[in-house]
């Protein structure tokens, strides 16, 4: 299959390239960027006039809900949602049922994903067996099966002795550990501690739940030199600590979710369960610090934190509702919205969902490391074509994900995905 994409505005954040040009794709690879020679005979030509041609997006936090939560999401529906959102590589969390704690489960998931022939799937293995926080998983075996790192998902690893050993062991082999910074005791709440939670009578998670966990992690990283990716930062104080830890040279990276970049606890309104998220939405100053942290590179990647939740689990009183929101199809729109509002160059905005997240997982990508999240000749042809000027309204019934709950229902977002190419084939085109 040969595809020629003509007249688009090609933006490759990795190289800084931003120009109107053509791109030729053959056998799953980008064969030419620029003037395409006349002897290239494409099977298909896409006129990309008015569209941005960007590397396919890389989402570091996706729940596919398989195995075990198929009522909330199936691999088919969620992988369809990924390509509809322009996401061509995704990292999925191990908090399935059973958790991804043994190679067979990971192989099965990879196999099922490969058969769907859509986005590249990079699972995170469970850091401990059953995510129970006691026994380490067989990390080498899991890595061989395709895991790109090890995570404890939302389950707090309260035992610092186990955490210390997990980091020692992972660092022995150069594996990255992905952790949420939330103290297992102080983190038991459903909203951010503050005036709103107090007024609404909701149990609050204080900022110190994040900063204590970060300080503990940094001490462990200083001791072990383990590489740690901090997932879903939520507070201004947390951003500040990460900034200082990076300045010190600790081998850490971190991400923030699209939800936390745009929302605050005030959005909970009259107990809107769509705003029931983990970590909880914090105050305006926290949101502003997260936005600034993403802009200055303290925060490496923007993630959708895609979590399909079914209707029954959301139509409950706020505290009982299952946390999470669908996000794969909103990642681009919410990234662009942040970029517009904070005056970022388009290439810089796109970097947060392409090359920057790739750098987080690069060590585990193998042969794809040199071209994922980029547009380079000879590299894998993962491409997203979108119309930056077209606004679309978020409507639950129009989402491909089985998860219909998002805080952004009814919002108008910029950036309509028109085509998504994965390894050189058209995996999605908008009707």
């Amino acid at each position: 299959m040969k595809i020629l994409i003509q007249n688009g505005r090609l933006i490759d954040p990795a190289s800084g390239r931003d120009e109107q040009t053509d791109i030729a794709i053959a056998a799953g690879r980008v064969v030419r960027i620029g003037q395409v020679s006349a002897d290239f005979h494409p099977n298909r030509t896409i006129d990309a006039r008015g569209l941005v041609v960007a590397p396919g997006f890389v989402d570091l936090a996706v729940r596919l809900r398989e195995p075990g939560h198929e009522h909330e999401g199936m691999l088919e529906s969620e992988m369809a949602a990924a390509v509809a959102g322009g996401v061509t590589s995704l990292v999925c969390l191990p908090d399935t049922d059973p958790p991804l704690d043994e190679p067979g489960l990971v192989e099965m998931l990879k196999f099922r994903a490969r058969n769907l022939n859509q986005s590249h799937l990079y699972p995170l293995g469970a850091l401990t067996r059953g995510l129970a926080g006691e026994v380490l998983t067989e990390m080498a075996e899991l890595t061989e099966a395709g895991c790109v790192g090890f995570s404890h998902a939302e389950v707090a690893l309260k035992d610092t002795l186990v955490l210390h050993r997990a980091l020692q062991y992972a660092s022995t082999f150069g594996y990255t550990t992905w952790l949420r910074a939330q103290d297992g005791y102080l983190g038991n709440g459903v909203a951010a501690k503050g005036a709103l939670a107090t007024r609404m009578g909701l149990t609050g998670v204080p900022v110190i739940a994040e900063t204590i966990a970060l300080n503990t992690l940094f001490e462990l990283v200083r001791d072990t030199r383990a590489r740690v990716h901090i997932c879903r930062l939520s507070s201004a104080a947390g951003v500040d600590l990460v900034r200082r830890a990076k300045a010190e040279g600790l081998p850490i990276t971190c991400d923030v979710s699209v939800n936390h970049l745009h929302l605050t606890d005030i959005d909970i309104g009259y107990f809107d369960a769509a705003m029931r998220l983990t970590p909880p939405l914090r105050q305006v100053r926290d949101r502003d610090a997260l936005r600034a942290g993403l802009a200055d590179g303290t925060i490496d990647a923007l993630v959708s934190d895609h979590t399909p939740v079914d209707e029954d689990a959301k139509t409950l009183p706020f505290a009982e509702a299952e946390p999470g929101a669908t996000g794969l199809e909103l990642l681009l729109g919410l990234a662009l919205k942040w970029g517009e509002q904070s005056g970022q160059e388009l290439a810089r905005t796109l970097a947060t969902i392409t090359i920057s997240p790739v750098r987080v997982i690069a060590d585990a990508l193998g042969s794809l490391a040199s071209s994922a999240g980029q547009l380079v000749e000879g590299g894998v042809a993962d491409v997203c074509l979108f119309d930056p000027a077209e606004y679309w309204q978020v409507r639950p019934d129009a989402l491909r994900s089985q998860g219909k709950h998002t805080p952004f229902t009814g919002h108008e977002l910029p950036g309509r995905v028109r085509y998504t190419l994965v390894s050189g084939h058209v995996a999605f085109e908008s009707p």
Partner: protein
Amino acid sequence: MNFRNNPQLNKHGELIHLLSIEGLPRALIHQILDTAGTFLSVNDREVKKVPLLRGKSVFNLFFENSTRTRTTFEIAAKRLSADVINLDIARSSAAKGESLLDTIANLSAMHADMFVVRHSQSGAPYLIAQHCAPHVHVVNAGDGRHAHPTQGLLDMYTIRHYKKDFTNLTVAIVGDIVHSRVARSDIHALTTLGVPEVRAVGPKTLVPGDLREMGVRVCHDMAEGIRGADVIIMLRLQNERMSGAMLPSAGEFFKNYGLTQEKLALAKPDAIVMHPGPINRGVEIDSRVADGAQSVILPQVTFGIAVRMAVMSTIAGNSA
């Protein structure tokens, strides 16, 4: 989707549900209290009934047990001539695994006109109001730590009865504020009605500093908290919180924050002492104070029925 506007008011600003005192206009609160005043005399009649809710069905949905509040709602509804159905949800539907909204759908199919809801989770009555049929009215009879608006209104009725004017008062609320829906409803009501000083009194574990943003003065010292007060509202300390990480013991709590005659002497000589009940004698309040001349705890209960009649008749008269 969720409510964009205050879900308890219709587009004319009339009350269709009572979910929280927060956001209610001052005039509306006074109107309910005035209406309650007219119902007080009903309670003194030989035939204690008025026909305002005749033919209407009021369902008491208590997802959390409470004999006292349920009884006062039942009496209020019956005095308005409504048919009252009590459902002990905690021991029936919910115990069988039926979801909250399935329960509501089933009861709506029985042509309920009003749901009186008590639930252990903050916000549950909002979810019910959002999903029930448009003609059904919802009264929040206490949700989690969030609100207990009829208690708040009866407290305001009591204060207005004894003190007449709100705009020159100092009101101290003492005890476990952080877990108290009564405290939140009282604070919203008092600040809306123009009380210049509302104090929240208790240890830091039970009185968070964030309360200042609700317009109250936070006092961790009991003497500072009740000095010069016109009204003291003591809160019930739940048994399960008497000993743990919040408080070491009921005895130590009483020593610091229990209301005794000696401490009451710091308040104004004509100060009134209130309590939403049921009281823990010797934990938050000394018996001599609870039974003393300044206590208005029993009149609160009497006013409570009239206030609940006023709330139910008011919302039943308005349509979405």
